[in-house]
């Protein structure tokens, strides 16, 4: 079944200059593999189309069941230069929670 990431993982964004890093952390071990398999750096960048202007690099921490997406050119030129109201991009991570992931039907009982 196709499930929004919000029921599978939580996330947080942080800023450094013009780069935003967005973590995606599985609620359960069972959710991690489908997220990792389906949420590539390319898919991630596509989902932030128009906002992330640069490269996206994905780091995986398999033991902790979490991914880190490092998004260059995501903060409108940098925190101090950005004309965006949310110039630190603190709210950027929430966007990925709408991304849909295919998971096995028998994982339904674990959904957050």
């Amino acid at each position: 079944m196709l499930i929004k990431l919000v029921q599978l993982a939580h996330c947080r964004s942080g800023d450094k200059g013009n780069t935003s890093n967005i973590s995606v952390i599985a609620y359960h071990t069972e959710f991690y593999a489908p997220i990792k398999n389906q949420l590539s750096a390319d898919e991630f960048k596509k989902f932030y189309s128009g906002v992330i202007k640069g490269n996206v690099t994905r780091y995986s921490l398999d033991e902790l069941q979490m991914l880190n997406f490092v998004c260059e050119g995501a903060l409108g030129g940098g925190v101090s230069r950005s004309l965006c109201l949310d110039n630190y991009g603190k709210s950027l991570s929430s966007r990925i929670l709408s991304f849909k992931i295919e998971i096995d039907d028998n994982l339904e009982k674990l959904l957050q």
Partner: protein
Amino acid sequence: MTIRIGSGSAWWGDRISPAKDNADRGQLNYLCFETMAEATISTAQVRKRKDPTFPGYDTWLDDRMKAVLPGCIKNKTKIISNQGWINPNGAAERIVYWLRTMGVRGIKVAAINGSLITQDVLNLTDTILETGEQTQLLENRIVSAEVYQGAEPVVQALRNGAQIVVTGRIADPSIFAAPMMFEYGWGMGEFMQLGFANGIGHLMECGAQVTGGYFADPGFKDVPRPWDLGFPIAEIQDDGTAIITKLEGTGGIVNAMTIKEQLLYEVHDPYNYITPDVVVDFSTTKIKEIAENRVMVSGITGKPRTPTLKVSIGCEEGFIGEDMFFYAGEGALKRARLAEIILRERFKIVGLEAEELRIDYLGLNAIHGDMTPEIKYEPYEIAVRVAARTATREEAMKVGREVDGMAVSGVGMTGKRVPHQDRTREIIGVWSSLVDRNKISPSIKLYES
């Protein structure tokens, strides 16, 4: 032996009462304050130029110290703080003043200097990390340049008998790593221990972000009493394990999820998190909930430090002008769109020279911009927010002036604020570079109350 390290602040504007709680009731060996963002030093330099009476340290220094000094003195808690900004000596003298005012004598307060390299930065640096261009290109625009110092000068100050250490720019995790290195005698070569110390420092540096702040998402991640978050306390063992917790009776939550979110906060490569002291490897971190609001963290390791230190270079980069006005009820969005057309024409008429102009509909697309999904309903109310980046303040002021015009010459039923606030602000762009660590020499000045 366990050492207890508490957080006193995570940024300049942070709440003060949780710091007092930690000082009074935390049974702490150390209370650590982090008060700077990337542009804090540059902003302080700009302010100092305009106002020579500005002392140049944390503007909340008095409030913070008045709140925590009584508890820290009573409990023999040492303080490590980066509230010195561009004037660590001044901050130390001010802390001595408060100690004496409280009748406390014989406390040693150390100021760490040597982070500011504004005069020499173009000789000491080569490349701008973000652009690959030469730092020389920033000449004439530089407001401030500071090196991120590591834990070493703080450890030295503690060895010299300081009970309070106040610094300028220092890497945030180093503020917390220094007391671990001092207490357990960890030297610069012991990079496994330094990796652990800085990793735990990283978890602590953002204060309540590990105790339930910046976390709640109703229905998915709930936080008890989120109006009263306790700041974190780390119980450190010399075997490379720590327990992250908070005071009994405070709101918030410490669990594996809050630890994981903070673990990657502002981290790029978690296998190689570069600090002045060590390169931290978070990949083997073990996180275990051992009791309510008590999480054991272990397995963080480290690799040898790099030969360079990071430098932040703050530059004058023009101005931003911004303002907003409002619509509600029937047809609100249509009126907002007409207002945008009027504004864009007005900016042509007055010849606004903007490097970038942005008109957002707050409530529709102002935060997520171009990636906002299409909205299929009419919003009941909407704010039109206008921002422009310009070379001069005069140009930036045109934004507010044209929004003023929308009051009586604009669209029907426009809601508008009285222009009571300053609608322009100066941009301090922050660039990074690297400097040979051997060219940087921190110095310690010791005061006594």
